[in-house]
């Protein structure tokens, strides 16, 4: 069994995270922004698992399960909110949705 080096995994996690951040920043559609957030969460989870296996401790996997649970909760609420927003505004474009004037 070949073991992936911690550096490579962390690099992958960093890449995923950057993709997520870029997605959140660039996408106009809330739905895709939510997806990008999920990617970021998974990047963090990946980093936890890598670190856990590197130190030979279970904490990393425990944290991943937490993140999974949280992501599931978040997605369910987030999706329902998005549905509600679409229902009200007939649009998911973030720039059209802002109502505050600052």
């Amino acid at each position, binding site marked *: 069994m070949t073991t992936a080096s911690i550096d490579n995994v962390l690099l992958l996690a960093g890449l995923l995270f950057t993709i997520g*951040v870029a997605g*959140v*920043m660039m996408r106009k559609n809330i739905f895709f*922004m939510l997806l990008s957030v999920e990617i970021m969460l998974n990047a963090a989870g990946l980093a936890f698992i890598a670190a856990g296996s590197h130190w030979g401790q279970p904490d990393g996997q425990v944290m991943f399960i937490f993140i999974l649970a949280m992501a599931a909760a978040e997605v369910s609420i987030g999706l329902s909110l998005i549905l509600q927003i679409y229902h009200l505004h007939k649009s998911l474009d*973030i*720039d059209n949705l*802002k*109502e*505050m*004037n*600052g």
Partner: protein
Amino acid sequence: MQTMLWIIPALPLLGFLLLISYGSRLSRRQTAAIGVGSVLLSACAGLYAGGQLLLHPSLVYEVTLWTWIDIGDFHPAIALRMDALAAVFVFVITLIGALIHLYSAEFMEKDPDYSRFFACMNLFVFAMLVLVLADNLLLLYLGWEGVGLCSYLLIGFWYENPANGHAARKAFTMTRIGDTALAIGLFCIYYACKSLNIVDISTAAPLIFQQNPQEATLIAFLLLGGALGKSAQLPLQTWLPDAMAGPSPVSALIHAATMVTAGVYLIARMYVFFELAPAVQGLIAVIGAITLLVAGLSALTQYDIKRVLAYSTISQIGYMFLALGVGAWTAAIFHFMVHAFFKALLFLGAGAIIESVNHEHSMFRMGGLRKKLPIIFWTFMVGTASLAAIPLVTAGFYSKDQILWYAWGARHGQAWLWSMAWVGAFITAAYSARMVLLVFWGPLKTEVTSRPRWSITFPLIALAVCSTWIGFVDLPHNFGHFTPFSDFLHHTLPLTELRADPTTEWMFQILATVATVGGLLLAYSYYYIHNKRLRHLANQPLFRRLHRLWLAGWGFDKLYQTFISRPFLWVTKANKADGVDQLYSAMANITTSLNQRMAALQSGSLRWYIMGMVLGAIILFGLQLLL
């Protein structure tokens, strides 16, 4: 018997309390009965007590009512003490007070605030009696401020006219400047002598200040400050002419006979300090001499009869200060007493005249009243003669001659002080003559609308009699050695030391007579014989300018207004909104504007928020790496 001394001030106080609490329910007769009766009874008690003092030279009345304050070493009491000096003042205050109250009973008859008037007058008599009977300086200060209050209330008696209110506040504030100096003087005395009891500090002072004469000078200077304010001497004299806004009995009682001489009383009472501080004593003489000239010249030009008398009062008190300054203590008190009688008489007479000619104040619109108001004319003439110091027959002659003589002959006497006083005597005679000539002689200019009844004429006659005989209680040395008045006062006040030869006194008496006669003749020639000459004089620019200056009281008012009142008003007005509050408001405003800026960031645009978060994270990581 001694312990009954408190009755003298208590009677007017009782009158005041009755009038203030039941005034609105009393009839005019009852009001007058309480107002006049209380002072009259007090005068009887005062005369009795004074008589006892005369009979038993070693007697001093002392009574302690209760301890006022008791903190550590500081325990002034509400305690009264009557010695010879206080007795003279009590005599004048209660006797003249009673006569003036009687006069007011008729004079103020038509006034709607009859009971308020008598309440204030009674309160004044009470406060003035407390002032002179106080056995410690704190109680004296109570009376001192109390008379100031009554003066304020009575100057502004007809309060609907704002000008009267202004005059009243001016009087109160200007005297308060002096009062504050007096209060600071009290602090100095307390810390130097550990007591405010007048007898204690007078006996202890020479020892205490032997090593520390500067402190004595400072104290004397501060006491003088208080006296200057109350007695309307330079430079705090400008309130007195304006104080004539009050009713005439008030001017007679407060602003001529009693309150304005409180300064004289204070200096005489605290003479120990002035003897320890010769510089300040010299200053008193100088201030007195300058004041008597300045005020006398102003009196020479006034139109309003009451203002003439007001300036004349300032000038006569200047004489008293001069006497105090040269160390002629008894002469000052003698002139105080004589002046109180004739000046009260003149003010009451002036009030009666003004009332008779339909409230006309200007002497130039009176005239020819000699035949119309004979009683007033004769009594007024007696008063004026006393003021002008007509030799031998008037009381004013004896008292003023004494001061003139001591201004030369006493230990601190100076030739130039004497000459200023001599010129003052000349001016006094001139303005006195001018006043009576304008009022009583010449053509009738304003019709007489009413004539005084007995309760006005009786006090006038009584005062006229007093203004004549009272001079005989202290005759000059070359008139036979008859000096019961100064002998009496010497129980309290020191002897007047002479530097000149007493045998030369007759020369000064003749010179004084020359001044009086010269002044009378001058006024006579300008105001009676040669009216044209006066007009000619008035056309000369120099005299016109002088006239304007003197009429305005040497422009002191304008000076104070420009340099004190206006800047004060400007500062208070400029800072009405409170500069410090602006500071706090600025803090609040900065917070609000920051809040607005920050609120602008919360635009609702999600991408901006994320951008901010990412940027923040990058900066934090960057900092982490760098540090």
